[in-house]
C-alpha cells in the first residue's frame, strides 16, 4: 500500500508496533500481578488461620466442648449447633419468600410504577449494610414484636438480609429460560400457574439453587446483625433438640431459645487480650472458611454444569 501519509515509513511503523507491544506486555503483567496478589491474600488468610489454630483444630475436644474460661478447654459445639438451627430457620423463611418474589417479578409483573418501585427496592436492600438489618431486628423483632433474643429472630433477620440475593438469582434463572418452553406448556393446555409451577420453575432450579447456596453461605458468615439482636457469646448450653422421644416427636422450643453462632464465637475470642483465645478464634475461622468456601465452590460448580447443559 502506498503511503498516503508521507511520514509513515516501514521503520516508523515497526517502532510504533514494538512500542505498543511493550506497553501491552507491561499492562498485561500488571493485571496478572494484581490477580496473583489477590490470590496470595486468600491463601495467606487461610494459611494464617490454619497455622494459628492448628493446636485446637487437631484436638477433637474442640468440636464437642462448650466455651469456657480456660482457652484449652473451650469448644464450639454450641456455636455449631446454633449456626445450624439459625441456618435452618433462615432457609425456611428466605427460600419460599425469595423464589416467590423472583417468580412474580419475572412472570407476572406488569410494567407499571409499582413494579419499578419493587425493583428499586430490591436493589436498594441489596446495598444496605448488614448491621442496619440488625438494628431493624432489634427495634422491631426483639422489642416491637417481642420475639426476644432467640433463634427465630436471628433466622428472620438473616432471611431478610439474603432475600435480595435469592430474588436476583431467581430472576436471572427464570429470565434465561427460552420462551419456547412456556409456549410448549401453553400448547399442551397448561394455564399460567401450571406453566410456571410445572415447567418454568423446574427448569430454573439449578440457577435458583446456586443463588440459595450463595445466600446461605453469606448468612453463615454474618456476625454483625446477629450480635446486634443480642446473641450471647458465652453460651454453655445447647438449645432444646427439635426431635424428642414422646409425641408429637417434634418440638419448636429451640426457636425461642437463646443461642450463639460461629462468627460471633470467633469475634468474641479474637477480642480477648489473651493469645491463647486467639488460637481458638483461628480454629473457628478455619471451620467457617471451609464451610463458606465449600458452599461457594458448590454453587460455582452447579453454575458451570448449567452453562454446559445450555450449550
Amino acid at each position: 500500500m502506498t503511503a498516503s501519509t508521507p511520514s509513515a515509513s516501514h521503520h516508523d511503523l515497526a517502532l510504533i508496533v514494538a512500542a505498543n507491544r511493550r506497553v501491552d506486555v507491561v499492562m498485561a503483567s500488571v493485571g496478572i500481578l494484581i490477580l496473583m496478589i489477590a490470590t496470595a491474600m486468600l491463601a495467606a488468610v487461610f494459611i494464617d488461620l490454619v497455622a494459628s489454630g492448628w493446636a485446637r483444630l487437631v484436638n477433637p475436644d474442640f468440636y464437642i466442648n462448650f466455651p469456657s474460661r480456660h482457652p484449652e478447654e473451650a469448644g464450639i459445639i454450641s456455636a455449631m449447633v446454633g449456626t445450624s438451627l439459625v441456618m435452618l430457620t433462615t432457609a425456611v423463611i428466605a427460600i419460599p419468600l425469595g423464589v416467590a418474589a423472583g417468580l412474580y417479578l419475572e412472570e407476572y409483573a406488569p410494567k407499571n410504577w409499582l413494579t419499578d418501585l419493587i425493583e428499586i427496592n430490591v436493589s436498594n436492600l441489596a446495598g444496605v449494610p448488614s448491621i442496619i438489618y440488625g438494628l431493624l431486628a432489634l427495634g422491631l423483632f426483639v422489642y416491637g414484636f417481642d420475639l426476644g433474643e432467640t433463634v427465630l429472630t436471628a433466622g428472620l433477620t438473616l432471611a431478610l438480609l439474603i432475600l435480595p440475593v435469592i430474588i436476583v438469582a431467581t430472576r436471572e434463572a427464570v429470565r434465561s429460560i427460552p420462551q419456547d418452553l412456556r409456549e410448549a406448556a401453553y400448547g399442551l393446555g397448561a394455564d399460567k400457574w401450571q406453566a410456571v409451577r410445572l415447567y418454568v420453575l423446574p427448569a430454573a432450579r439449578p440457577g435458583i439453587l446456586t443463588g440459595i447456596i450463595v445466600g446461605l453461605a453469606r448468612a453463615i458468615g454474618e456476625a454483625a446483625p446477629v450480635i446486634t439482636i443480642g446473641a450471647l457469646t458465652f453460651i454453655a448450653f445447647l438449645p432444646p433438640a427439635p426431635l424428642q422421644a414422646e409425641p408429637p416427636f417434634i418440638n419448636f422450643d429451640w426457636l425461642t431459645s437463646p443461642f450463639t453462632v460461629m462468627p460471633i464465637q470467633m469475634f468474641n475470642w479474637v477480642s480477648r487480650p489473651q493469645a491463647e483465645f486467639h488460637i481458638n478464634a483461628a480454629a473457628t475461622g478455619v471451620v467457617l472458611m471451609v464451610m463458606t468456601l465449600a458452599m461457594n465452590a458448590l454453587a460455582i460448580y452447579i453454575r458451570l454444569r448449567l452453562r454446559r447443559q445450555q450449550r
Partner: protein
Amino acid sequence: MNPVNSLPSRDLDPRRFQGASEEFLRRRALWNQLAAYLLFFAAAASVLVTVGIVYVLIRDSLPFFQQVSLGEFLTDTQWTPVFENARFGVMTLVSATLTVAGIALAVAIPAGLGLAIYLSEYAHPKVRETVKPLLELLEGVPTVVYGFFALLFVTPLLQIFLPGLSGFNLLAPGLVMGIMILPYTASVSEDAMRSVPMGLREAGYALGYSRFRVASRVVIPAGLSGITAAFILGMSRAVGETMVVAIAAGQNPNFGFNPLEGAATITAYIVQMAMGDLPHGSLAYQSVFAAGLALFVITLVFNLIGFYLRRRFREVY
C-alpha cells in the same frame, strides 16, 4: 390498578378446553388468581422491609434528637455517650469510617480497574472463566475472618515497616477491606467495559492503538458511568462494613483521619454498644439508632447515585 397481568381468564378460555365444565374452568381461574396474588405479596414484602428499616431507625432515634440537637450531632468532635458529660458528635465516628473507606478505595480502585482492564481487554476467555470464580471465592470469605487477619497478621506485618503503628489502627483494616471489595469493583467495572461495543475498540485498533491505549482512551471513557458506579457502590460497601473494623480498628471514638491510630467507626460503635448492656429506651440505646440512621443515609445516598449511574450505562448501549 391490577398488579398482576395476564390473568388466566384469557388462558382458561372455553374454546381451548372443549368439553370442560364451567365449574372446572372457574375453579382453575380462582387458583391461578390466588397464586398470582400470593406471589405479588411476596414481592411486595420487600417494600415492607424497607419501610420497616426506615420506621425503626426514625422511631428509635427521634427521642435522641429531642435531647441532642441536630447541630451538635453533626458538628461536635467528640463522641462520648456513656460518660457523665455525654457528647454526641457523630463526625467523630464518620471521620474514622471515611478514613478506612478511603484507604480501602485507594487499594480497590487502581487494583480493580487494572484487573478489569486485564480481564476485558487482554485475558483469554479461559483465563476469565477461571478468574471470575476465584474472585467470587475471595468475596465469600466471612468478614470476621478478614478482621482476624487484619488484627493478627497484617498489623504486626505493617509494624515492621511502620514502627509508629499502634495495635489498633485504621491502616490494616483499610488495606484488608480494599482486597475484600476488590472482586466487587473489578466485576462491576468489567461488566461496564465489556458492554462497550466492539466497533469502538476496532476503530481504535484501526488507528494503530495498543490494547492499553484502546482500553484507556476508548473503553474506559465509554464505560465511565458504569465504572464510576462500581466505585461508588464499593465505597458504600466499605462504609457499611462492620466486623473488620470492629476487630482491628479498636473501639475508641476519636476524631481525626490518622490511619496509624485506632478509632471507632459508626459500625464498630453500634456493635460495641449492642454487645454491652443496653437498657431499652436509654439515651445510649437511642444513640445507637441515631448512628444507624446516619449510616443508612450515607449508604443510601451512595447507593442511589451508584444505581442511577449503572442504569445509565446500561441504557446507552
